[in-house]
C-alpha cells in the first residue's frame, strides 16, 4: 500500500515536472508571442496541477492529514492563468500592427473588441 502510494505521488511529481519543463522550453523556443503564450499558461498550469495533486495525496495518504491549501491554490491558479494569457494576447494584438491585418473577420462584422469600440446600435438578441 505504502509503495503504491509512493509510486502514485512520484508519478504525479514527474508528470508535473515534465509539463513544467515543456512549458518553459516552449516559452524559450517558440517563434512568436502568440505561440509562446501556450507554454507558461497551458503546459505549466497542467504541470503545477499535477504537483498540487501529488502534494494533496501525500498529505492525505502518507501524513494522514488532509490538506486543503492545494485546492485554494488551484482555484487561484486556474482563474488567473487564462485571464493573464488573455490580457497579454490582447495587449499584443493592440501593439502589433502587422498582426492586426492578418486577423480573421469577426462574425457579423462586430470586430475585435481590442481594436474596435462596441457599436452603439448593437442588435438586441
Amino acid at each position, binding site marked *: 500500500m505504502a509503495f503504491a502510494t509512493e509510486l502514485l505521488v512520484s508519478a504525479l511529481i514527474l508528470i508535473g515536472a515534465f509539463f513544467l519543463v515543456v512549458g518553459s522550453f516552449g516559452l524559450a523556443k517558440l517563434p512568436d508571442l502568440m505561440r509562446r503564450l501556450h507554454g507558461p499558461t497551458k503546459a505549466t498550469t497542467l504541470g503545477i496541477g499535477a504537483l498540487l495533486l501529488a502534494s494533496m495525496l501525500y498529505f492525505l495518504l502518507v501524513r494522514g492529514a488532509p490538506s486543503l491549501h492545494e485546492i485554494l491554490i488551484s482555484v487561484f491558479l486556474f*482563474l488567473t492563468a487564462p*485571464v493573464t494569457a*488573455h490580457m497579454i494576447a490582447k495587449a499584443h494584438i493592440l501593439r502589433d500592427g502587422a498582426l492586426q491585418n492578418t486577423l480573421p473577420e469577426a462574425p457579423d462584422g462586430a470586430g475585435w473588441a481590442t481594436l474596435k469600440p462596441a457599436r*452603439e446600435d448593437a442588435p438586441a438578441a
Partner: protein
Amino acid sequence: MIALIALVPLLGAMLPPIVIRSGRDRCTAVTAVVSLVSLAVLLAQVPAVFSGEPVRTSVEWVPALGLSFSFFLDGLGLLFAGLILGIGLLITLYARFYLGRDEKVGRFFAYLLLFQGAMLGIVTSDNILLLVVFWELTSLSSFLLIGWWSHTPEGRQGARMALVVTGGGGLLLIGGMLLLGQAAGSYELTTILARGEVVRGSPLYLPILLLVLGAAFTKSAQFPFHFWLPHAMAAPTPVSAYLHSATMVKAGVFLLARLWPVLSGTETWFLVVTGTGLITMLIAAWIALFKTDLKAILAYSTVSHLGLMTMLLGFGTPYAVTACVFHVINHATFKAALFMSAGIVDHEAGTRDIRKLGGLRRLMPVSATLALIASASMAGIPLFNGFLSKEMMLEAAAHTALVPSLATLGALLSVAYSVRFALGVYLGPVRDDYPHRPHDPPAGMWLPVAVLAFLVLAIGVAPQLLAGGIVALAGQASAGPVPIPEVHLSIWHGVTPALVMSAAALVGGLLLLAVFGPLERVREKTFRPEAKAMFDAVVAGAVAACRRGIGPMHADSLPRWLAAISATIVVVGATAFFTATYAPGTRDLLPVEFLGVVAWVLLAAACGAVVVLHGHRVLTLILTSVVGLVVSLAFLQFSAPDLALTQISVEVVTTILMLLALNLLPKLTPPEHAPLRRLRDGGIAAAIGLGAAGLAYAVMTRDFTTISDYHVTQAKPGGGGTNVVNVILVDFRGFDTFGEIIVLCIAALAVVALLDSALRGAAARRLDAVRQGLESADAHPLVLVIATRVLLPLALAVGAYIFLRGHNEPGGGFIAGLVVAIAIIMQAMASGYAWAASRFRVDAHALLGAGVLAAGVTGLGAVLLGRPFLTSWHGHFHLPLIGDVELASAMAFDAGVFLAVVGTVLLSLAQISRVEARAEHRPVPEGPLDIKFGRRQTTPTGAPLTTARVDAAKES
C-alpha cells in the same frame, strides 16, 4: 494657582472667534471677562505679595532640560501684570469701537488675548526657559497684531521687521538664559536672583550680559534696534496703544529690571546700559520733535522714554531702579492715553498729519481735554504723574558725572515735542480743511482714555497715596537683596538740583520750539540715515548670501543629493575601517547550496540588467521586482515566513502602483551623456555596494547576543502570541510601529500633495504631451472583470484569515492590509477606478485617520488602566462552538495598522487615478460593465441601463 494668570488669556483666546457669531458686543464682553478672570486671580494674590510671602507654583515639564512650568509673583511681576491686564481691558473696550464694521473682531481679540497671555507669562514665570518660551510667544503674537492690516504693504513689512528684530533678540535670549542657568546652577529665577555674586564672578558673565542685553534692547527698541518700533505703527491704533505703552516694549525693561540684582553693578553694565539708554533717549526725542505723523511722534517718544528707563536701570542704584519702576506706571498711563487719542483723531478727523490738524480743542472738547492732560504728563509738567518720575530720573542722574546735562537735554526735547503735539493738534485756530469734520467719538472710545487721564492726574496729585505702596514693593522686588531707600513720592521736595534741571528743561523746550522753523530747515539739509532702507538691504543681502551658500548644495537634482549622501557614507565608513584594526569573523561559513547559487545568480543578473537597461522604465521596474522576489525567497530559506509574506505583498503593491504611475511618464529616461559623471556615479555606487556587502559579511560571521533571544523567549509569556515578529511589531516595539503608521499616513498625504500638481498647470500640460495614444478599445475586458470579481471575496477572505491568525502564525495587520489593498486595486484595474470607488464607499482619508486613531486609542487604553502607553493585554477565553480563543489587545492595535495600510494604498491609488483620468481625456465609465451584451437591459423607466450612462458621459 498663579499659573492661571497667564493661562487664562492663552486658553481664553479660543473663545472670541467662537463667540463672535453672537455679535460684536458679546465678543467684547467675553474678551473682557477672560481678562477680568485673570485679573481676579492676580488680585487675590495681592495680600500675599504685600506681606512678603513667596507666591510660587511649579510643575515639572522637561526636568532633564531644567525646564519646569513654574510661576512666581512678587512686587515687580504684580505691577507689570496689573498694567498688562488693566490697560488690556481698556484696549478691549476701545478696540470694540475703533475697528471698522468689516474687521474680523473675533480673530483680533483672539490675537490680543494670546499676546496678553504671553506677556503675563513673561512677567510671572519663575523658570527662565519658560520665560524664553513666553518671550517668543509675544514676538509671534505681536507679529499677528502688527500685521493685522495685512492687505497693506506697510502692515506686512512692519510686522516682518518687528518679528525679525524681536525674534532675533529672542534667539539671543535663549543663549543668554542657557548660559545664565549654567553660571547660576539653576534655571529658577528665585534661585538665580539670590546668586548674583556667583553670576557676576563667573567667566560667563560677559557673554550672558551681552546676550541678555541684546534681547532686552531689541524688544525695548533701544538704539541701534529702535527702528522697528516706528514701523510697527502700521498696526491698528489699539494694538499700538497696547504694545507700545504697557506691554511688548516694556518686556525688555522688565527683563532688565528682573535680572537687575544678578547682572547690574559692574562697570560694563553701567557703561552699556546707561550709554544705550541715554543715546536712545536723545536720538529718539530729537526725531520725535520733527515727525508730522501723530503716531510716529508717539512712537519715537516711546522709544525715548524706554531709553530713559533703560538709562535709569543702568545707573545701578536702588533709587534709580525705583524711579524706573515708577516711570513704567506713569509712561504706561499717559502713553496709552495718547495713542488712543491719536486713534480718535485719526478716526474722527481722517488724518494723523499734524500739519493738517489744529484747533480740535473746540471741535472735540472731551477727547481734547483728556489728550492734553496726557501730553502735559509726557512733557513733565507739575501736577501730572510724568513730572514726578522725571524728577526722580533727574535726581538719580544728578548723582552721576556728565549724565545730568544730557538727561536735562532729553527732558528738554521731551517738553518740546509734547508741546508741539498739543499745539499742533488740539490748540491753535480751528481750520476748515479737515478730511472729515471732527467731533467727539462715542463714549466707548473716550472712556478708556478718561480712565487713564484720571490716573495721570490722580497719581500726579497724590502720588504717595496711590502709587507709593506698589512702587516701593516693585522697586524692592527689582532691586533684590539691596535695600531701596525710603520712597516718599511727593510733588514738592524743596529746591533740589532736579527741580532746577526740570525748570531748565521746561524753559529750554519752549525756546527750542520757538526756533522750530529754522531748525527744521537745517535738519532737512543734513544727512539722515534711513533705517528701513538699511534693514531691507541687510535682509536682501542675507537672503542672497544664503542663496549663494546653500543653492549649489540644494539643486533640484536627486542624483546629486544621493551622490553627496552616499559619498559621505563611503568616506566616513572607509576612514573608520582603515584607521581601526579589523579581525575577520569567527563563525564558520555555511556550505553553499545549489538553490542558493541559482537565486544568487538570478539576483546578480537582475541587478546587472538594471544597470544596462535602466533607461527603460517599465523594464527596470520588472527587474527590480525580480530582486524583491529573490529577497523574499531568501527570507523563506532562512525561516522568516513573515518577512517573506510582507516582502511579496509589498512588492506586488508597489509594482502595481508604480506601473500605474509610470503609465503617466515617458517610457524612456533621457540618457546621460557625460561619461565622467557616469564613472563617478558608478564608482560611488560600487563603493557603497562593497561597503554594505562587507558590513553584512562582518556581522554575519560574528557571534554576538542580540535582543532577539529576549524577544523569542518573551513573545508568548509577555506578548501573548507565538509569532515573534508580530509580537515585536504590535507589542514590544508597538510605539515604533505607531510612529511608523503615522509616517505611512503622512507619506500617503504627500503622494496626494505631490501628484496634485500633475492635475493642473505646467505639469499637467507636460503630462499630456508625453502621453502615448495607444489604447485598447475595450478598456475593461469582460474576462478580466469577471475573474477579478470572483477573486474579490477569496482575496478578502485570505486577508481576514491572515489578519486573524497574525498574532500566532505568520501574518498580521500589515500583510492583511496589503492583501486587501491588492484585492481592491485589482477591482480598480479591471473595472475602472470610478466603478471601484463608487462601490468602495469608505473615504481613504477616513481610513488613515481611523487606523492611527485605533492604534492610539488602544495604547491609551493601557494608560487608563495605569500601565505605560501601548502596554498590551491578553487572555484566554472559552467561546461556545469555537473553543478556546486567545485574545490580545494588540489585535486592536494591529487593526489600526491594517486600516492605515489599506488607507495609504487606496489614497495613492485614488490620486493616481485622478491624474490618469485627466490624462486619458476620456470619460470614466460609470456602469457596472462598459461592455455591450447582445440583449439590451432596461431599467423600470425604460432607459437603457448600462450604455446610456456611458453615452451621457461621452456626450458630456
